[in-house]
């Protein structure tokens, strides 16, 4: 298969996934018994105008998917005048609705918080990947030794740790030494940029470490089994037999070949780490998307919940697509296949 073909297939998959997420999001929040739009529209606290605005905005008087009556009349464009279309149109205009709790635009709320989560997830992931790959490589190489057992046990332990509980433990331990809540020290004069960003950096330390510890275990396990599989290949035997020093075999033959599956797995794990971000942000009151979701759950703030989920899902889909494309550049076999 040619690379162009591979790339097209991956883009196609990403688009289908994206469409499925959009439909799912629409279904979950609009059709199911707990339909929040119906809930608010029947709320006695709403004024008549507000109700009408919502009705028009969501197209509630229209059919859900397609207007079959108008199709029968031969009115093709009119067929698509439905609730689902209204939902899509609102989405593409960047209109994710208004938060029940704060009365602010959901897209605005998300935009101001998204970078805080990105910084957290990225930092923790880079740390976890570096440590995890190094430890996994060493463990696989020294398979069965005490060092391997130690690394393996540490990895299994960190894998079994609930993120939120590790966060609470670190929070208790670090109390008084490091900032444990929020993004900036309250009352800090943002006189100049540097002190402000240093303060933010300090607040980032604990959440980042918590997430990194939990995900390092995962990466160690994956790297260890990936390297172990490569090490049992015949070309390693050949490399060893022709007298290459062990370290070179590890670096040039084992590491390089074990790296490839890692790229895919890191991308897939990203969806999983985003879930960790919700827990970490909740524990440390880090004002990102995760904390927003936690608060939205507490207050049953459905528009925020829906918007935040959509944002997370779409970012993870895009990250996966990028990883697949990167894979096609790194692995020459994709071209030759």
């Amino acid at each position: 298969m040619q690379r162009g073909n591979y790339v097209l297939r991956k883009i196609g998959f990403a688009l289908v996934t994206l469409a499925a997420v959009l439909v799912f999001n629409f279904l979950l929040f609009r059709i199911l018994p707990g339909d929040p739009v119906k809930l608010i529209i029947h709320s006695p606290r709403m004024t008549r105008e507000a109700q009408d605005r919502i009705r028009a905005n969501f197209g509630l008087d229209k059919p859900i998917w397609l207007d079959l009556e108008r199709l029968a009349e031969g009115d093709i464009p009119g067929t698509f005048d439905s609730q689902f279309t209204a939902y899509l149109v609102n989405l593409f205009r960047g209109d994710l609705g208004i938060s029940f709790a704060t009365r602010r635009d959901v897209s605005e709320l998300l935009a101001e918080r998204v970078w805080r989560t990105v910084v957290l997830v990225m930092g923790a992931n880079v740390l976890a990947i570096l440590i995890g790959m190094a430890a996994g490589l060493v463990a696989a190489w020294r398979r069965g030794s005490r060092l391997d057992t130690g690394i393996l046990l540490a990895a299994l332990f960190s894998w079994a740790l609930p993120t939120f509980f590790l966060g609470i433990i670190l929070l208790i331990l670090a109390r008084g030494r490091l900032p444990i809540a929020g993004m900036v020290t309250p009352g800090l004069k943002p006189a100049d940029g540097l002190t402000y960003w240093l303060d933010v950096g300090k607040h980032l330390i604990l959440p980042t470490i918590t997430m990194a510890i939990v995900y390092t275990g995962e990466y160690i396990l994956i790297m260890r089994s990936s390297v172990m599989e490569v090490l049992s290949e015949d070309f390693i035997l050949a490399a060893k037999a022709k007298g290459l020093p062990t370290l070179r075999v590890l670096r040039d033959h084992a590491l390089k070949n074990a790296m490839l599956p890692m790229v895919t797995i890191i991308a897939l794990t990203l969806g999983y780490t985003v879930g960790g971000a919700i827990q970490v942000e909740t524990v440390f009151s880090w004002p990102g998307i995760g904390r927003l979701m936690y608060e939205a759950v507490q207050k049953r703030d459905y528009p925020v919940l829906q918007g935040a989920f959509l944002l997370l899902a779409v970012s993870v889909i895009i990250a996966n697509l990028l990883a697949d494309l990167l894979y096609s550049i790194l692995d020459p076999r994709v071209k030759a296949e």
Partner: protein
Amino acid sequence: MEPIRKFFLSPMGAIGSLMLLSVVVMAVFAPVIAPYNPYERVQVTPEDILAPPDRSHLLGRDDAGKDVLSQLIYGARVSLTVGFAASFMSMVIGTSVGVTAGYFGGRIGNLLMRVADFLMVIPDLPLMLVIIAVMGRGLWNIVLVIGLLSWTYTARLVRSQVLSVKERQFVLRARALGASSWRIIWRHILPQVLPLIIAQAVLDISVAILAESSLAFLGLGDPMLVSWGMMLNFAFERALSRQAWWFLLPPGFAIVWISLALVLIGHRLEEIVNPRLRTHHLFNASRMVALLVGGGVGQQPATE
């Protein structure tokens, strides 16, 4: 019986099993072991709120004046129920999908694997969070959501195994003798794949337990039941500033205990049943010589 002995004689397998057993005993005999019934209403005085441990309440009391130890013991029931039920569900779905895709292939098989890919990409905790938040947080809703969303790994595993097993001699022979697909799958393929499925299912139990406790910690546990995640949620929201460690730490350690037990068991099982993980070429020099002289990796007995 060799693999079973190998499992229980290894420290990881033995310790993991004992840890799991302790929680199972706790869950089954909760009414006998627990000093109080956490579902009973209690009369509380202000001093009872977050009272530190004493002789009649070994782990102190929570923010509602209830005995923490009793809640901890009863909480094992929720974790085990969700863990086993959700994992069983994902095992059944994952195996069916994997066999369909691997053995029959075709359009339906392809479609099912695309669905698996799709579920793998979507971030699972946020997805569970929105579904539970909208559909309600009953215990079986939680089991259903976790079970329906976590079969993808099993499906992939089973599919790749079935793909290789179905080309093996004994399967081809059975087919030549006119055995039906159903019979080939049940009698010849599944027994070969089963050990791997079980190892994966054990790991899935721990994943399900962690997912349930994360949901409960985020305020989406079954409100009618006492669970470890919910205890932590209450402790975190209401007892952190009071430094009530007796309320905060035990449920957390309980979750770590049970998930570590399952991870140890699952990992050890996987090591035993997945022969590819047994040996490699850089292990040590004397083995290398033995390999080269003895010829062929296949004949090399695993040294464990």
